[in-house]
């Protein structure tokens, strides 16, 4: 069975907010709402660290990290269990999704979600540009909405928008049930954390902390399972840290850019 999951390499993340922006564009997310947020773990504000600035030769204790946070697509999802009308459900491929035609807007799922990943259309949804963006229909007022792992793209064999557009290759999407997938390999080979692990929700989103991974090793828009043999072989080499060109360390160079999936 397929069980989709996401690995976010916090050592690679540069806090550029591209995933937050591209999510908003791809999913037609209304103004005043975010499905995907880049949090600054450190000081009180975005882009500020904890600790104090080192003066007079002190050694510093400044510390800051970025934590992109969206729906964690938990295996034991509290939101799914509380939904009285089966509007929020877990798909066979592990994606937690909302049936916007069923949701009656009781917001029990928002009370249940420990990650505050869900947003509610309190107002008539408003978009910039006004006609909206992306490939997903607007959700009506009075329903709850959230990240879908871009299920509309996944169904077309494409990685989620935030994954494809991460300039730091810090987001890797794939099948957790496949031991050979990049996500499974990274989870077993690197130190990964799940957010609020102690709540027992068993998220399908894993955060790499400590040693940096080689990141998302393929350069096309496609899901890992949809890669051609050549692409897959190159991705495997890069995932294993092997040089893929004569230059040694390879910056992310799109190998082929015939995307145009819009």
């Amino acid at each position, binding site marked *: 069975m397929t069980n989709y999951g996401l690995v976010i390499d916090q050592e690679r993340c540069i806090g550029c907010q591209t995933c937050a922006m591209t999510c908003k564009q791809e999913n037609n997310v209304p103004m005043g709402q975010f499905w995907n947020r880049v949090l600054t773990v450190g000081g009180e504000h975005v882009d500020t660290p904890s600790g104090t600035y080192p003066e007079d030769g002190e050694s510093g204790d400044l510390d800051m990290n970025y934590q992109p946070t969206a729906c964690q697509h938990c295996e034991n999802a509290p939101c799914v269990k509380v939904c009285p009308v089966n509007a929020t459900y877990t798909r066979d491929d592990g994606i937690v999704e909302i049936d916007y035609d069923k949701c009656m807007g009781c917001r029990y799922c928002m009370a249940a*979600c420990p990650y505050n990943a869900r947003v509610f259309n309190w107002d008539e949804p408003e978009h910039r540009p006004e006609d909206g963006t992306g490939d997903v229909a607007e959700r009506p007022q009075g329903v709850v909405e959230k990240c879908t792992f871009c299920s509309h793209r996944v169904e077309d064999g494409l990685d989620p928008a935030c994954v494809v557009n991460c300039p730091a290759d810090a987001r890797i999407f794939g099948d957790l049930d496949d031991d050979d997938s990049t996500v499974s390999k990274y989870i077993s080979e690197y130190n990964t954390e799940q957010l609020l692990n102690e709540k027992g929700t068993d998220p399908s989103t894993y955060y790499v902390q400590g040693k940096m991974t080689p990141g998302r090793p393929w350069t096309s828009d496609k899901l890992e399972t949809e890669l051609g043999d050549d692409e897959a072989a190159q991705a495997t080499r890069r995932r294993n840290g092997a040089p893929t060109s004569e230059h040694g360390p390879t910056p992310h160079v799109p190998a082929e850019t015939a995307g145009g999936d819009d």
Partner: protein
Amino acid sequence: MADADTTARRPVLSSFGTLGRGWLGVLALLLVIGLGAWAYQLQHGLIETGMRNVFSWGLYIMLFVLFVGLSAGGLILSSAPKFFHSQRYEGFARLGVLVSLGCIIVAGLLILPDIGRPDRIYQFVTSPDFRSPMVWDFGIVMLYGALNVWYLWLLTRRDLAARGSRLSLWVSDSAAGRDRDRTLMFWTAVCALPAAVALHSVTGWIFATQVGRGDWFSPLVAPVFIAKALVSGLGLLLVVSILADRFTAFTADRGELTSLGKLLGIFLAFHVVYLLAAERLPHAWAHHFGFWAITSNFLIGDTVYFWLWTGLGGAVPLLLLATPSLRRRTSVIFTASVLAVFGTLFEGIRLVFTGYQRVNINAAPGIATGGEYAGLTTDAWATAGTYTPTAVEIAVTVGVISIGALIVMAGLRYLPLQRAAPDAAYATDGGDRTQ
């Protein structure tokens, strides 16, 4: 027939009178304002409330919790003695069930304005997920409401029949019928007590099952809900009884009032002293080291709701009711009961605030609040929950509560809530009537 007129119990309001009409007028006005506010909210959406993404349940749910609790008193008080075949507090039984019914209807109706798409509420029936505590609660609220209707009718139908009221439906008054009803009342009491326990526990479990909202996730929540239902339910019954005694032909037995006041004191002590201590002590002990740090964190709350609940709504009525010379006064019982209900209101408010005030992941920029978009200068974020109900929410809530009050008024006027004549026990044993 003339005989029946003199022996069957009567409604306690023979007519509404000037005062009664004025009060009905006020309630009707509040209801109209509430309906208007709800229509406005339906048109504009929940943006007209004070709720936002971080604080996504507000006044409607806080008062839903309160009114579920309030509906406990009457039913428990009238069914518990019957369960033990006792005549105690018989005089309060009918009024009690009437108040219970009013409260559970208010509670159920308060859910409607909280729903974002009320047009889809039928999904509760067509597509329920039985894992959801809200489905359990939906079921038990409906069951409990139906039980109240049945019980109120069962308690009054023979008297209604004797008075020729159409509310008796097809039932007629007879000694044998009253005998049968007594048995039915016993079995209804047998069902009512576990139903009440289930109602309050399930409502508690709506919160207690949630890992994501701080102190909600506690096995104590269900017992606490039972305790606060006992406190607030009995408190409200005493308030309504004393008011009915003052303004209608209803008579509340002074000795039983005092005895119920004492019972309220015991419930308060169990809820506000014992259960609160049981909830707080382990946390205070585990998280602090020094003796005084443990003690102060055990005893001292940090929100105004905590103090309104435990102080004004807990300690003060407890002291009033614990003093024998004071609790014999009806005015003192009335004050203590009002305060107990008031305290429970703030206990519910505190519970909801506990869940939403702090967020688990509060790193900047925080959580998008989803409020109105006012262009480039809109600040969309919050790292902590804040909530103030809007005028719309208050108007809708008051309107819904006025429906409950109207139900009670109608009951006072049309249902035989009068006490049984002190010299005749026929009202409950039903065997003494001469044909």
